[in-house]
């Protein structure tokens, strides 16, 4: 197989199949937002620091600005749009609302995906584990306290 500057990829995003031709240089976050029109995942810093672009790729939490779209060929991707069903917030989202875990909301999609990944792996995390779990996500409004409380409350 030789190197190519673009290729056709197939991905499953939140249960829906997409097939698109993408340039090799295209970041996964740009593919998700601009090619698929799923703008829930945010671009905060573009440098891999802030975590606003966090999504799950085959169940693994990643920053989608530090991955190429071509690398996700064949993958199952979960974004914040997949959390609510039939217009109803899921338990985690509702907990964020109940505990005022957001102010401007820009970091929230990434926070929700990091918390989703954490709670799947550890159903009742300690405060320390929650803080470690969202370490890759920067929030400039809340001081994290209410985010930690919301995640604690969402733990079944």
């Amino acid at each position, binding site marked *: *197989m*030789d*190197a*190519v*500057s673009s*290729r056709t990829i197939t991905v499953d995003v939140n249960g829906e199949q997409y097939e698109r031709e993408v*340039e*090799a*240089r*295209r*970041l996964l976050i740009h593919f998700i937002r601009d090619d698929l029109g799923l703008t829930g995942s945010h671009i905060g810093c*573009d*440098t*891999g620091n802030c*975590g606003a672009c*966090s999504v799950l790729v085959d169940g*693994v*939490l*990643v*920053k989608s*600005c*530090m*991955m*190429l779209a*071509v*690398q996700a*060929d064949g993958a199952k991707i979960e974004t914040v749009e997949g959390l609510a069903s039939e217009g109803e917030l899921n338990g985690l989202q509702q907990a964020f609302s109940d505990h005022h875990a957001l102010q401007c909301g820009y970091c929230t999609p990434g926070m929700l995906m*990091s918390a989703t*990944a*954490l709670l799947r792996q550890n159903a009742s995390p300690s405060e320390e584990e929650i803080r*470690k*779990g969202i*370490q*890759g*996500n920067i929030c400039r409004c809340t001081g994290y306290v209410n985010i930690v409380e919301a995640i604690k409350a969402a733990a079944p």
Partner: protein
Amino acid sequence: MLLREVEYARPASVQEALRLLGSNDGARALAGGQTLINVMKARAASPDVLVDLADLGELRGIELGSDGTLEIGAMTTYTDIVESAEARARPILGEVCNQIADVQVRNRGTIGGNVCSNDPTNHLPPLLVAVGATMTILGQGGERSVPAQEFFLGVYMTAAGPGELLTKISVPPGKSDGFASVPIGRDGTCIVNVAASLDGGTPRLVIGCVDAVPVALMPDSVEEDAVRASVRGANLDPPADVHATADYRRHLAEVLALRAVALAAGRN
């Protein structure tokens, strides 16, 4: 940010990867991409071809040999190492991998990528020198083994040359290891880090972030005076930046050396 145009290949075999890497001077191996993709955004690196190693299963995984040696595939992620039961044969490995960056980066970043990028602030170069690791490098001419101490050649430069691939890292058994750092924020980039290993008789002390390559020292003993003398005797000439002056880095090197040795000694 828009990356410069680049070609992409995802070989299905190591031989195919070597062919692709060798066929173009501008080809670079893409491991976890947690450094490379970022430096491509800043255009500090602009490879012509990315050879994605993601499908090379033989480069991933951790095996514990009957003699206690760990063989860690270059594409093994930090998270793999943190969660591996086998890797606990050398507990310091998982402990240090668990303090690199954050969950997302640990999920994709690899041990091979960390050492091959050889950023002087990375955690693993000094650690792997301290534990006496051996790197296996594969090229068109065959396979060779390089001790970690000879692997790191300069800033961003290693013994794995153009057209070659680091395939695995072998770590001998041991447990009397310590790692101490002052990072920028918890689990952030290190200002200075020091790894110490007391297995195998002579204490080994390796300082990161103070030179182009990890600085390996062999103090006469683990006594405080001997450790301090060893660090002072190295005449470190560390860089200065917004985070620390050269003097402060020299000070940290000495203090962290003592802490790393104390941590290692606590495990005897």
